[in-house]
């Protein structure tokens, strides 16, 4: 991605952090604020960047995907459901159930992706419409099943939601253990170390999200498969004439995209919180779509964009924590509504092309007719 955009995004994040540090330092040590904001940013960015990657694979192969939201929602539900079944009905141990939950989430994501593929590639349905169908379907299906399976007369689990096997464990990075001796007795130093440690202690999906960003970057730009995928998204006919099966490539990419959206869904119900609620994705699928465009259809770009969204939510939360110490000249910041607008307005600015033009794959959204 071009440096101009990268610099801009970096600047935004720094500003957002700066504001909070400026306000909060009277109460909490800057290092604590920064690290805690970093932690929040990474957490919030996880589903967003995964969702953006989902979109990336679809759109690089020439299929617009605004169904990410629906894919996330349904896989959040089915992953959670799968975990519960494994645990309660089939009596697997907790660990197994949880991980198989992740598997089920990705599986249902793939199925949703497959649906989009069938609609947009085989039936050549307008791709944006196809996505809309998926979004509506997901809302209905999850809400319906969630109620019908767990509540009221004749429900599978006799009218109450069974205890889900829980969430994925945090992977502890022993920074404190290693560095705290160096601190000796200095409390500040110890604080620094522990709070830094907090940033590094992440859960599997959060970590894999970051890894996947770079893996995706490598795959898309440095491998045969990536070259072909991009070719299919740029000029399918040309790809066809060198013997690349356009339809197959697109099906593959869209399904992989679905799987990634599924992983994003798993984050909600299997990593973050072990319960499902209707509509819990709350429009994050659309935000990740914005992040994708924001990042100009590149994995790293989309990821940094996701970080911006994360940072501005961290800002929003922290401003409320420090509500009582917001200086009068910044009073407007007390309106969380105002702060909440930041990412949306940023996205629109990006779309105007002021900060570098965003160029989608040439054949994005165009069904391939032989």
């Amino acid at each position, binding site marked *: 991605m071009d440096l101009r955009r990268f610099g801009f995004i970096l600047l935004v994040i720094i500003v957002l952090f700066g504001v909070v540090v400026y306000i909060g330092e009277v109460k909490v040590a800057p290092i604590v604020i920064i690290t805690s904001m970093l932690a929040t940013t990474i957490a919030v960015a996880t589903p967003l960047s995964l969702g953006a990657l989902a979109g990336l694979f679809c*759109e690089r192969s020439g299929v*617009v995907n*605004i169904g990410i939201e629906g894919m996330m929602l349904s896989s959040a539900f089915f992953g959670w459901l799968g975990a519960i079944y494994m645990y309660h009905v089939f009596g697997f141990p907790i660990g197994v159930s949880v991980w198989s939950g992740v598997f089920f989430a990705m599986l249902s994501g793939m199925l949703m992706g497959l649906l989009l593929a*069938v*609609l947009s590639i085989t*039936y*050549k*349905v*307008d*791709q*944006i*419409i*196809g996505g*809309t*169908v998926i*979004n*509506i*379907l997901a*809302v*209905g*299906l*999850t*809400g*319906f*099943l969630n*109620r*019908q*399976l767990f509540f*009221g*007369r*004749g429900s599978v689990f006799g009218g109450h939601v069974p205890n889900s096997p829980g969430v994925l464990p945090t992977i502890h990075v022993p920074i404190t253990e290693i560095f705290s001796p160096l601190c000796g007795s200095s409390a500040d130093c110890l604080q620094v170390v522990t709070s830094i440690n907090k940033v590094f202690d992440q859960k599997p999906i959060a970590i894999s999200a970051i890894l996947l960003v770079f893996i995706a970057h490598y795959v898309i730009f440095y491998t045969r498969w990536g070259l072909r995928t991009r070719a299919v998204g740029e000029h399918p006919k040309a790809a066809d004439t060198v013997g690349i099966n356009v339809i197959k490539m697109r099906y593959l990419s869209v399904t992989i995209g679905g799987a990634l959206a599924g992983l994003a869904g798993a984050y909600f119900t299997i990593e973050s919180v072990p319960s499902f609620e*209707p509509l819990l994705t709350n*429009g994050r699928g*659309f935000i990740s*779509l*914005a992040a994708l*465009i924001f990042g100009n259809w590149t994995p790293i770009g989309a990821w940094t964009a996701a970080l911006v969204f994360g940072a501005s939510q961290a800002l929003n939360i922290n401003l409320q924590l420090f509500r009582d110490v917001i200086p009068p000249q910044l009073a407007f910041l007390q*309106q969380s*509504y*105002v702060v*909440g*607008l930041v990412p*949306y*307005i940023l*996205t*629109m600015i990006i*779309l*105007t*092309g002021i900060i570098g033009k965003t160029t*989608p794959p040439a*054949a*994005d*959204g*165009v069904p391939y007719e032989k």
Partner: protein
Amino acid sequence: MQVDTTSKSPSQGILRSALDAILIPFLAILTAVILGGIIIAVVRGNPFLAYYGLIQGSFGSAKALSETAVWATPYIFAGLAVALAFKGGLFNIGAEGQLALGAVFSALIGYALPEWLGRDIPLIIHLPLTIIIGMAAGAFWAAIVGFLKAYTGGHEVINTIMMNYIALNTISYLLNGPMKDRDPNNVIARTPLIADSARMPAIFEGFRIHWGFVLALLIALLVWWILNKTTLGFEIRTVGSNPDAAKYAGINVKRTIIITMTLSGMLAGMAGALEVTGLNFRHELGFSIGYGFDAIAIALLGKSHPLGVVLASILFAAMRNGATRMQFLTQLPVDLISVLQALILLFVAADAIIRYIYRIKSKGERVVLTRGWGG
């Protein structure tokens, strides 16, 4: 999703063209209903009782009919908004925000204007004004997106989504702050009630159906007329089907895009305004959630044809309205309605599936509604 935009000869009037568009949607609905029935049966519900409830609850009594009309009113406007944009080659996902904003501002004029002027205003002036302001608000919100599309190429889908969030945030702020109902007993984020002079008269006493419904039908006719009989409509459709040809033909494409988006937003805003002036007499957070998205489904189901939109709106309204009765009889969750709607939409969008099931030949010149991100 594809739509037949072959322009009609005089011999084919509004009805004829509507009939052409109606077969596939009918079969789509039929198929969806059957599939939905299977789903209900699978979760040990009684599909027949459920559908019976739906129908009884939506058409079974005068009251039911009135309620269906109440539901249909905003649907028709919002559906027309999306459909009009489709005709102009634009995908307005922002009806949601435009509608809410329209509601807020017509509410503002509804309750605040008399205070500002310090005197009552005759209904003949106040009511129209209230509605117009609501339309203006929606129009303005959409016009921004149209402008960005025309002059920067920023894609309307993302921009309208962003504008939705901005609208919802702004409204949350207004209803919790400056515009909040000051009544000591009020605990809700909502505006005060609007003055009587800003309220739409009821058609029949004791029923909630209001003149907004009739207005909706008239507006649908108007939209059809504009699209198919006027130079403006010709321009909108031309830009929608082939922008390059439109430019070649001397049509001001940028202007047309902005006009289309503005009209679309105006219709959405009107939906909001009528919810306030005809039904709720105030705006409250949480009113009108999700109408914008239903509107997309409605526009598609109606094949972006104004008459089709009206029929689709009534269908969706009936489903939403009948849901209460269905719940009461079967205790099936409301979400079933969303499932049905999604299935219907699915089959309408992928009409190839329907054509396959019922062995129908494809016919008619077709154009794609939206064009990727290129804009």
